[in-house]
């Protein structure tokens, strides 16, 4: 298979646009045969997931590109960083980590990226539009951009995202092309009670199950009776992109490429059909917790990053209450949403409750948790999925209301009444 390079691609490779662009195109050119690409195509935006500091190699990579004079060729947003620049000292973040994570932030900022520092760039100013060709990293953002907006991105891994941003070019494959966006797996929601469908937890629980079932296929879900809010869709996409490799899902009657079931399959027959029942959802909800009762040391909301709408949903639940003295109550978000929430007077209400806010990072991306935190509670399937491996904590999954009640009580308090046969 030969890769046809445009004149611009060849100039990039020859170093006409500088050594960083040459390095980026070298990586893209070597990756093209892995993707089975015959040519490259233009993108008009990028989102960089390589921002999270993990160790020396990622920092060396970022500083090497920066030292070569890398500049992004398209408008580019930045995913979460490894550091809340302002409040990291309130937590257990080691100074050496903070220093290196900050160097990595500066390296990406020096390339002309917009310092959004968020895993929800689709709720920021630079939200892409339907049909737009983009190169996005961050699994939840990829699934949201493709599924909910109908923008076109492959599932970009860290380090390739920035190569695409500094060249403006990507392999013309996968979800960039309409022909690869056809659903291949039909999922029917069967006899799911109304009160479950209306519960916020339905979305992360269903997403967790969907990811496990779909693996790397494109599921088409039939049987939604309500139009979910954007934050509910966010929770669903994040969960499916954690437990599976889902980069695109279609919800019939909801998402833009699935006005009808025929449209979602574009006349083709599904590879497989599967029914999802309440019992399946109950099992998936249980699977999200490693622990079902006991003393909670921390309650954390905001993976993906908390939106202004979620702050508005949370604050009334806190009224007249105070967090238990043994519990830390944390909301993780980005500087934009925290700023908006502050102006709306919502942060003061959170502080009065005894809660805290961390911006631009999250508990998975920075080593902020003190060692005494053994049991975490969350309403996020993504936090629930990754915390046991990354943080070595136990996890209790519940609704936002359960999370608030548990934070007040200092132990897991869950209302399981709708999650029963």
């Amino acid at each position, binding site marked *: 298979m030969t890769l046809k390079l445009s004149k611009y691609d060849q100039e990039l490779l020859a170093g006409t646009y500088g050594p960083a662009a040459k*390095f980026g195109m*070298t*990586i893209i050119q*070597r*990756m093209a045969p*892995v*993707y*089975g690409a015959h040519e490259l195509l233009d993108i008009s935006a990028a989102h960089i*997931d*390589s921002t*999270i500091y*993990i*160790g*020396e*190699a*990622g920092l*060396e*990579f970022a500083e*090497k590109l920066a030292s070569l004079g890398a500049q992004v060729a398209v408008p580019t947003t930045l995913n979460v960083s490894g550091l809340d620049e302002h409040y990291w000292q309130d937590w257990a973040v080691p100074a050496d980590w903070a220093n290196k994570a900050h160097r990595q932030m500066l390296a990406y900022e020096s390339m002309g990226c917009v310092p959004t520092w968020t895993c929800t760039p689709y709720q920021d100013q630079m939200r892409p539009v339907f049909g737009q060709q983009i190169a996005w*990293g*961050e*699994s939840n953002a*990829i699934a949201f951009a493709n599924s909910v907006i109908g923008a076109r991105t*492959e*599932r*970009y*891994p*860290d*380090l*390739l*995202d920035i190569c695409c941003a500094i060249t403006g070019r990507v392999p013309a494959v996968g979800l960039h092309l309409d022909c690869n966006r056809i659903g291949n797996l039909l999922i029917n929601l069967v006899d799911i009670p109304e009160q479950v469908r209306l519960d916020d937890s339905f979305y992360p629980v269903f997403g967790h199950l969907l*990811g496990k079932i779909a*693996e*790397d296929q494109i599921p088409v879900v039939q049987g939604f009776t309500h139009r979910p809010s954007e934050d509910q869709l966010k929770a669903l996409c994040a969960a499916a*992109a*954690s*437990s*599976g*490799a889902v980069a695109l899902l279609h919800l019939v009657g909801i998402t833009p490429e699935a006005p009808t079931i025929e449209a979602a399959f574009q006349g083709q027959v599904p590879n497989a059909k599967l029914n999802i029942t309440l019992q399946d959802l109950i099992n998936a909800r249980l*699977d999200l917790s*490693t622990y079902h009762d006991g003393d909670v040391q921390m309650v954390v909301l905001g993976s993906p990053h908390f939106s202004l709408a979620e702050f508005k949903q949370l604050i009334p639940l806190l009224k007249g209450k105070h967090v238990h003295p043994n519990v830390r109550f944390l909301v993780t978000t980005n500087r934009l949403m925290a700023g908006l929430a502050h102006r709306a007077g919502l942060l003061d209400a959170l502080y009065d409750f005894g809660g805290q806010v961390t911006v631009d990072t999250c508990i*998975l991306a920075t080593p902020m948790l003190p060692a005494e935190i053994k049991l975490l509670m969350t309403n996020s399937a993504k936090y629930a*999925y*990754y915390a*046991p*491996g*990354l943080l070595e904590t136990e996890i209790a999954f519940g609704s936002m209301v359960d999370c608030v009640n548990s934070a007040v009580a200092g132990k897991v308090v869950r209302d399981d009444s709708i999650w029963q046969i």
Partner: protein
Amino acid sequence: MADIIEAQIIIPGEVTAEVIAASEPLSFWGGYNHKTGEIIDRRHPLSGHNAAGRILAVPFTRGSSTTTAVLLEAVRANTAPAAMITSAPDSFFALASIIADELYQSPIPLLVISRKDLIILRTGDRLQITSDGNIIIRHREINI
């Protein structure tokens, strides 16, 4: 007894090592400790196994985009798998291997076999990967 599987080469290399294999996909972020090489996804069948210096066989990567970055850290820390086998070309693994080559001149050999062949591989089998993409399996002896 030795079986031979002909693999598609994504990144070539010669390796002889023990394999750890599972039919469930794996995310390296939250799934692989790059300081030790231990598989730490507590919901994955290989949880607790150490992949450093071994051949890792999983169908594909799931979840986080950060898998590539974690694998690159592992290469730098000498805790990466000696080679990897998947059931379809895996762009995340391939990218980490290519960047490891560009930055550190140490690419990780990466091969693709069918899912049917993948399930033949059992954790503890010794594999010899040749430069032309053959995988020679020496099954772990089972004492009955």
